[in-house]
């Protein structure tokens, strides 16, 4: 553990002389040294563009490194080819790309999402619905915390074009039955988009085995810099997507069309979706983050975070004053809870964690975590979320639990 923690320089920093306990990994994980080095390398000795633009030596090196990162991303998801990877700025952009470019038709214009979705997996489709382009159905708006495949599949009809669901909830950490849903969706001629933002830091993905047609994720939750993510899209489906952003790098040619007006000949592969100069430092950082995860071992990370998550949940569940959110069972490294006493305000406790502890500043997430519909549907106004990664320890969780007990004592 000591060696792992040494890989994350941010863990060494102090705030007002106090140690940081970082439990906001579902938002963004801290950055390991290899990623910092990869970004530094690009900015220090490259700093140029790639991708079929400039033909000079530095550009060729950058292109080679970016290609390597695409190959690693493809292997990370077990995609059939690196050409199935579109670099985006984050999960949100990947899902917006799908919402805006998916070839909906009159006969097939329904999208199924879930109440457990992050706003980023719901709003892009609601926006298309607002414009009158599609109809959105939301699974799990009522009922308890569990959401099984039947409740999602029950909304899939012959009119369903797309089922978009999270691999794991960003509030409760629970996993969703993507494989079962994909089978039913395919049977009805629909495709599946997985929001894997909260899944990949601890779980191995295999898009082909799971029957996932498209998958979006963010690099910053895996140790890469913010501003880089990827959208996996099956080759045949990618060809059918409409243009999203166009511009430099997306065309093979611009030829005179009818009346001499310029007409673009777009690429059919990922290049059609990567318009303009790209986030090369981010792409190289993502490649380095995937290497880091491979070296640390996803199974090992999962074992480690599972232990901390279970410990934290067990201890919180034993406290009468809080309600742990979620159905229990298999989940990612996330624990959210709400205070049962409505007079206790989660934001106050968050401020307490940042200000009142003698030796630590504990960073958690407080609010509705960009999942207001879920909080509203389950009658929770605000929750606190702890999320873990490879560098967190059980003793850090104890620091948090002691702080919580001290806070509750001070309220009484």
């Amino acid at each position, binding site marked *: 553990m000591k060696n792992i923690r040494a890989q994350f320089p941010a863990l060494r920093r102090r705030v007002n002389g106090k140690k940081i306990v970082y439990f906001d990994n579902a938002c963004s994980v801290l950055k390991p040294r290899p990623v910092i080095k990869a970004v530094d390398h690009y900015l220090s000795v490259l700093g140029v563009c790639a991708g079929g633009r400039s033909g000079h030596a530095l550009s060729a090196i950058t292109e080679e490194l970016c290609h390597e990162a695409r190959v690693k991303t493809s292997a990370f998801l077990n995609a059939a080819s690196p050409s199935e990877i579109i670099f985006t700025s984050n999960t949100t952009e990947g899902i917006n790309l799908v919402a805006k470019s998916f070839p909906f038709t009159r006969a097939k214009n329904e999208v199924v999402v879930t109440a457990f979705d992050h706003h980023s997996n719901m709003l892009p489709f609601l926006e298309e619905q607002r414009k009158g382009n599609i109809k959105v159905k939301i699974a799990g708006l009522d009922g308890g915390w569990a959401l099984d495949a039947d409740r999602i599949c029950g909304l899939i009809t012959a009119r369903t074009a797309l089922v978009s669901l999270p691999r794991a909830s960003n509030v409760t950490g629970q996993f969703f039955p993507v494989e079962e849903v994909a089978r039913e969706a395919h049977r009805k001629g629909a495709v599946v988009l997985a929001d894997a933002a909260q899944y990949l830091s601890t779980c191995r993905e295999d898009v082909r085995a799971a029957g996932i047609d498209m998958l979006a994720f963010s690099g910053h939750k895996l140790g890469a810099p913010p501003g880089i993510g990827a959208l996996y899209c099956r080759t045949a489906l990618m060809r059918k997507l409409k243009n999203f952003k166009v511009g430099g790098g997306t065309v093979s040619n611009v030829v005179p069309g009818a009346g001499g007006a310029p007409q673009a000949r777009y690429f059919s592969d990922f290049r059609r979706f990567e318009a303009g100069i790209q986030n090369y430092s981010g792409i190289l950082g993502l490649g380095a983050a995937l290497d880091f995860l491979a070296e640390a071992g996803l199974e090992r990370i999962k074992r480690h975070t599972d232990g901390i998550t279970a410990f934290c949940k067990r201890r919180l569940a034993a406290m009468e004053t809080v309600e742990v959110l979620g159905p229990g069972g298999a989940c990612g490294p996330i624990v959210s809870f709400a205070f049962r006493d409505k007079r206790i305000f989660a934001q106050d406790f968050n*401020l*307490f964690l940042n200000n009142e502890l003698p030796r630590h500043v504990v960073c958690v997430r407080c609010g509705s975590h960009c999942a207001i519909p879920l909080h509203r549907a389950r009658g929770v106004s605000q929750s606190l979320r702890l999320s873990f990664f490879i560098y967190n320890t059980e003793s850090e969780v104890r620091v948090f639990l002691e702080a919580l007990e001290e806070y509750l004592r001070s309220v009484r």
Partner: protein
Amino acid sequence: MKLEFKLKNSAQALKSLKKARPKEVLFAVDSTLLASAEGLAVLRLAADFCIERGAGLRIEGVSPCFMPGYSRYLLPAGTGALACPEKERCFLGGVCSGIPAKHAGIAGAFKPPPRIFTDLEKCMLAILARKNGITTAQVLKAAKGIKICASCSKEGEVFRAAERLVKFGLVSKKYNRGVYIWEKI
């Protein structure tokens, strides 16, 4: 609607503004007002009134140093503007087009301000201006009614801004039995 803001009519101008509730408004500001802290306070109240109501606001004759945080509403200094000798030192220099010609007589009053507030900081200050000495829960409830920034109503970003204001000595926060009390100093 165009409103003239002079020191002697500023309170009256604010009154007419509140009565008229215009959708679009242009404030034309006189040197006598700029030279007075009291007049500037009224001008800010008038501007906040428009911003919170979502009215289109433009302010003519004011350089950013007199209204930090309101740059987006300030019109350029216009023809005949004087170059400000402080521009190099001023962190607002990049968004400032100089001293309007009509204020040449008080050019010495154009000085770099200590700090520009972010929208969230303005939001917190606006909340506490309405009701001071309130709890965290009350701050968030009040935030829903402030148009400067409505994003804080759930996630509590306003408290990150509030903690900066505490550092600047503009706001105090006191912890007592599980609750924080926020106060504009």
